């Protein structure tokens, strides 16, 4: 069979899921093709290739672009082509994705009162929920034999959809070594990744930590009892694939993209540190957690021995209330200080992600005539939602009565101790300060965006900051906050700080100027340019240093500058997708906007 994979656009990271599915399909004797909506004409390629299966891998935010593409394919080819979508969006949203005319039973994934009953009219033939690589070959076999895939686990079709919305999931794949090598040729043949020196790979799968902004908490709940959560390739199998990669494609740098590359010093890490320099010998980057490094500092010793150049350790928030109570990171300021300090000692360049614009209550102004009522509301929220024990404070002050200045001060100090701040932007300033204090070399400061299935999203719905309409989200989280609880001025400050935060890592002495003046100005475009050049400098020299010809550098700057604009600007992103060829459906009013606009 001919299988065409569709991705929205290329980035500088390998689309590993597509590469794996292609390899699995080829192993079963099928032919595979790739269409990149960003620069390929989908309908022309469908006409030329005449695929029997068109497969989409969708993240929330880009899903509607793919629905549009699918609608175009189905309009032209009808049932001659079987279309299927997998990836994070259907995994966490399949219950409200209508395939073709069937009635869906609502309510759906979220119980929040503000959840809109939006049904996505996808016109797909099937959805794949969860890990798709196990069921993918069986699905292709069924389709090539003109059989229905209805009996397969993880698959949702219009005829097998259950009234209660449940899906049978296959056990986790715990033997990764049996998987074929990623089919990078499929992607490199059509994209700029061919000449990009950094190759992305993964040593394993799974993350057990409960970070609330991440899909893993929900994913692990879905897969509870379905096999070991963490599974990885043997060192020999991993290195064999990397050797093949380096032999066939120009490679200067390896990026291990596992959520957490290593959890402890174990036989695997020691073997990796021994063999990687001899087998591959290229500088690499990987992700770990600060608390794990503090618990087992030897991790860094072995990574250094293996030849690590740079490392990701996310801070996520410098504010203790957000980090512990909202994001549930399970690490404290000392973990962060220790881990970054140790990286500096080892000469490992550090990269940290930090999320700004998190909806959190602010401490009321003592001069506010409604101070007592507001403080009481906040305390009630802290007690009921975050399960904080405020018994001591309640014993000292009665918030139902008018308070004198001393009592107000007691309340304010107590809330400050918990981590609450006086202004919305103060939380983000805390975060920037922690990055600067820990001498983070390169940092990204995106704003919180709610994605389906995450506890943080449920939190934002519960407090009324988000209405649950995911289709309104921009394709990327590095743009203005979608939350209704922030004023326009606050959103401007957050957006500016998300750009200038990186500049402050290079020029920490600009803190006063940035915090007190620049973030209030409507000079976001200028800040974007400053951000872009700071990023280009740090990525190119500290994070993923590679050697290129002058013409390649100029071309990369041009391409990456445009790519960053699309990430950061909703308006530019909309214009871009409206210009795409081959999507003969009307574009919706906003990128990722409701399908039936």
């Amino acid at each position, binding site marked *: 069979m001919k299988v065409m994979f569709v991705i929205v656009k290329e980035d500088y990271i390998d689309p590993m899921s597509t590469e794996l599915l292609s390899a699995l399909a080829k192993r079963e004797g099928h032919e595979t093709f790739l269409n990149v909506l960003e620069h390929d004409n989908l309908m022309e390629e469908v006409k030329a290739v005449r695929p029997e299966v068109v497969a989409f891998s969708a993240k929330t935010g880009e899903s509607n672009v793919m629905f549009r593409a699918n609608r175009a394919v189905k309009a032209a080819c009808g049932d001659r082509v079987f279309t299927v979508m997998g990836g994070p969006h259907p995994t966490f949203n399949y219950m409200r994705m209508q395939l073709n005319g069937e009635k869906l039973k609502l309510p759906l994934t979220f119980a929040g009162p503000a959840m809109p009953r939006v049904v996505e009219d996808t016109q797909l033939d099937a959805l794949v929920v969860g890990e798709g690589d196990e069921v993918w070959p069986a699905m292709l076999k069924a389709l090539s034999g003109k059989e229905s895939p209805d009996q397969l686990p993880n698959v949702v079709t219009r005829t097998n959809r259950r009234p209660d919305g449940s899906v049978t999931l296959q*056990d986790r794949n715990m033997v990764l070594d049996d998987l074929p090598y990623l089919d990078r040729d499929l992607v490199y043949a059509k994209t700029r990744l061919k000449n990009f020196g950094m190759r992305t790979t993964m040593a394993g799968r799974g*993350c*057990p*930590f*409960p970070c609330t902004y991440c899909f893993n908490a929900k994913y692990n709940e879905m897969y*509870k*009892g*379905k*096999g*070991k*959560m*963490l599974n990885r390739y043997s060192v020999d199998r991993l290195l064999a694939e990397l050797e093949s990669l380096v032999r066939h494609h120009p490679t200067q740098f390896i990026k291990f993209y596992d959520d*957490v590359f290593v*959890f*402890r010093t*174990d036989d695997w890490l020691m073997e990796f540190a021994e063999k990687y320099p001899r087998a591959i010998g290229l500088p690499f980057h990987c992700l770990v957690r600060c*608390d*794990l490094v*503090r*618990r*087992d500092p030897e991790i860094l010793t072995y990574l250094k021995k293996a030849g690590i150049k740079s490392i990701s350790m996310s801070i996520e928030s410098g504010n203790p209330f957000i980090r*512990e109570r909202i994001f*549930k990171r*399970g*690490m*404290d300021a*000392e*973990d962060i200080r220790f881990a970054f300090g140790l990286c500096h000692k080892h000469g490992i360049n550090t990269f940290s992600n930090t999320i700004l614009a998190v909806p959190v209550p602010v401490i009321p102004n003592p001069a506010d005539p409604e101070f007592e009522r507001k403080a009481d509301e906040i305390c009630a929220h802290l007690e009921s939602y975050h*399960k904080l024990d405020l018994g001591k404070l309640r014993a000292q002050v009665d918030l139902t009565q008018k308070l004198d200045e001393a009592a107000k001060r007691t309340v304010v100090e107590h809330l400050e101790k918990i981590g609450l701040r006086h202004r919305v932007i103060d939380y983000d300033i805390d975060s920037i300060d922690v990055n600067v204090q820990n001498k983070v070399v390169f940092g990204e400061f995106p704003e919180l965006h709610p994605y389906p299935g995450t506890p943080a999203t449920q939190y934002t719905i519960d407090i009324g900051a988000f209405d649950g309409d995911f289709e309104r989200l921009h394709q990327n989280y590095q743009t203005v906050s979608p939350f209704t609880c922030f004023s326009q001025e606050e959103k401007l400050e957050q957006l500016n700080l998300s750009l200038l935060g990186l500049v402050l890592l290079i020029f920490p002495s600009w803190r006063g100027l940035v915090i007190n003046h620049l973030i209030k100005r409507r000079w976001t475009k200028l800040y974007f340019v400053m951000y872009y050049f700071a990023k280009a400098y740090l990525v190119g020299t500290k994070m993923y240093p590679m050697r290129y010809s002058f013409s390649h550098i100029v071309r990369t700057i041009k391409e990456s500058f445009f790519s960053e604009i699309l990430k950061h600007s909703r308006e530019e992103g909309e214009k871009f997708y409206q210009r795409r060829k081959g999507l003969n459906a009307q574009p919706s009013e906003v990128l990722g906007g409701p399908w039936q606009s």
Partner: protein
Amino acid sequence: MAELRSEFLADRLTSRELLALLFVCECRRKKVMDTMSFRGGMAPPAWVEFLDRFMARLDKLPEDERRYLIGSHLQSAEEVDIYSNAEINRLLDQDRELINKLVQELARSGCPE
């Protein structure tokens, strides 16, 4: 896997029991089990150091979050499949006496549950 969600043994363990299990797993991994003794009322230094590392971040959390976080460390650093009842039973049986002692110590020291 035939186990149903309600049947997971790990879901019925308290955070104290999970923390004790985590400590025992760490000691086994580091091959220091033979130094685990509370003789003379003195806590082994490894236990003191372990509590020092974990308690600061655990004691502020509600019980369900404490259990989740300890479970994360069991699954990652100790490579325990906590949703395999057979595996959890085996680990608990292996060092039941020590785990009971550690749970008592946690209760005595005021570790929340």
